């Protein structure tokens, strides 16, 4: 039988070169979606194959990889994939990582120069739900014809009083291309602006790569009288007391009980180790008696 053998970081070198060329083009034209010959990866489409291919193409032997969200099953699976096929060091610490692959969050701590943030993107086309045809949307990008998007945002305001987009909130990159930031909550949008790290976006099933080079302007679309606002549940984190971080809602019982904790677990744990405490963590190493 044809027994399989695999290259460093899984992809063959020719494929990596093809992806790197697409990445370079994407960096040269910030926010522009570069078509690339996405490969079939050993994990399903829609489960991060675009991000995995970008990571595989840029990973070197000395890199330290972090995959967000660190403790969820799919992130663990991707981290193990690279630990196995590339033998690189992995970490959950944002500060220690050189390459961070993410699906739905940008870390709370500020990224620094030399780091690369790789986004897994399900639908790269910000205009897709307004215009399903690729031939049309590519023309609209070429002409910078984004009126349709503004009409959509306006209609939201007319109907709901607010722009009713809470994640994958469209941005304009380098004052030219409207871009989908991937399904990160709009809370994270401001972190993309003038970021010191390189941001790469990979959409495997849709076969597109795009990029935001370091220190590029990224502006969330809005109106003068309805400016962009971040959404954050108005409470401190129940574990570390942070009042600036994005929170996950944890349902604790079936009687309406719930608590809010940092979605970025590395950020939360770092704060706890520095002595910060929230309402639920007064005695961190002691079980609370039930009843």
């Amino acid at each position, binding site marked *: 039988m044809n027994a399989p053998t695999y290259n460093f970081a899984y992809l063959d070198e020719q494929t990596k070169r093809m992806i790197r060329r697409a990445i370079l083009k994407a960096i040269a034209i910030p926010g522009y979606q570069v078509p690339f010959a996405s490969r079939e990866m050993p994990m*399903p489409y829609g489960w991060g194959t675009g991000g995995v291919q970008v990571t595989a193409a840029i990973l070197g032997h000395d890199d330290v990889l972090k995959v967000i969200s660190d403790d969820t099953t799919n992130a*663990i699976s991707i981290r193990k994939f690279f630990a196995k096929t590339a033998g690189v060091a992995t970490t959950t610490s944002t500060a220690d990582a050189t390459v961070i692959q993410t699906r739905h969050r940008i870390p709370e701590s500020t990224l620094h120069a030399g780091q690369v943030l790789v986004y897994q993107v399900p639908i790269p086309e910000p205009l897709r739900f307004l215009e399903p045809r690729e*031939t049309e949307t590519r023309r609209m990008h070429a002409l910078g014809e984004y009126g349709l998007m503004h009409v959509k945002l306006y209609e939201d305001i007319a109907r709901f009083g607010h722009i009713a987009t809470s994640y994958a909130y469209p941005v304009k990159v380098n004052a030219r291309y409207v871009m989908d930031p991937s399904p990160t909550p*709009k809370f994270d949008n401001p972190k993309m602006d003038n970021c010191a790290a390189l941001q790469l976006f990979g959409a495997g099933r849709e076969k597109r790569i795009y990029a935001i080079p370091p220190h590029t302007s990224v502006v969330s679309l809005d109106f003068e009288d309805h400016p962009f606002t971040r959404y954050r549940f108005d409470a401190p984190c129940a574990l570390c007391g942070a009042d600036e971080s994005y929170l996950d809602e944890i349902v604790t019982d079936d009687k309406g009980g719930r608590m809010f904790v940092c979605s970025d677990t590395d950020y939360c744990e770092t704060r706890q180790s520095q002595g910060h405490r929230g309402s639920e963590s007064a005695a961190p190493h002691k079980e609370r008696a039930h009843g």
Partner: protein
Amino acid sequence: MYVAVKGGERAIENAHRLLAHERRGDRDVAEVSLAQISEQLSLGVDRVMTEGSLYDRELAALAIKQARGDMIEAIFLVRAFRATLPRFGATEPVDTGKMEVRRRISATFKDIPGGQILGPTFDYTHRLLDPQLAEGAVPEWPATSEAPSTAMPRVTDILGRDGLIEPAPRADADTPVGDLTREPLSFPADRDLRLQNLARADEGFLLALGYSSQRGYGRNHPFAGEIRLGEVEVEFLAEDVGFAVPLGPITLTECQMVNQFKGSATEAPCFTRGYGLAFGHSERKTMSMALVDRTLRARELGEEVLAPAQDEEFVMSHSDNVQATGFVEHLKLPHYVDFQSELGLLRKLRKEFGDNAQGSPPMQEAAE
């Protein structure tokens, strides 16, 4: 107190261990071998080879075994392996006119040169469950006769001699064949890429689209000109030796649909073609493919594009079952971050709705 969820790594390992156990089933029952799958579930193997785009019966059988008989999962396994294989080049075009035919039928003529050959087919069987098969009955040996000495020209070639059907497009030897697994697809796509997409496409999706065209959504009056099944030689032009080297035979099913004619002020009317080709014995697949190939030629033949089956962006973007299943099933991955964001927005909108209902002033007009 609340502790953040941990232990995903061990959960994954244990889940896969359990999967392997379930795959094996009752250990008192004999394990199925790859040869048994390849020989006795051969149409399943053919489908996995076709939609997996890899002609290797043994690997396809392994994929079916590993996937517990889930065909799309098996196709996915084969595709992921195929993606890592180096490419040496493209073979010479295969000549289905020289096929070693095992089955060959035409619906357009009562008799044809070389004859109608039914071969191994479910057609005309009565679909009655056979209790004898459950007991492991040994079938009779097949009937034999002298191989016919006459040639078996393709029906479309016979029609083509009189100009009654449009000529098959001739491949330009200097133009490389398109390959959507190596180059990103862009629209409009040429017919070589459309056919490659359809050959890899999900059988059920093509079946439904082909069926929809028969029921009036992009109708084009098809006749099954010919369906043939058999072995063809594959040859590869080796640059070093300077001639085509035979690589061996593969089994193919080919379907040529003969469709409604076209004509214009300058061109005499003639029938048009729809083409289907697949690895192994894949009759339903090739017939559906031929129907959809023809409907997708609407633009080329100056027909109005109205039905889904005529719309190449719609068909080609949604035909791949590995892509489709991945994206549909990714919905089971955690989405709580985005959901939290939506929850927050919805609570805010509901609060404002409640405030308004209690007689507070209406919300600000958007244009104010």
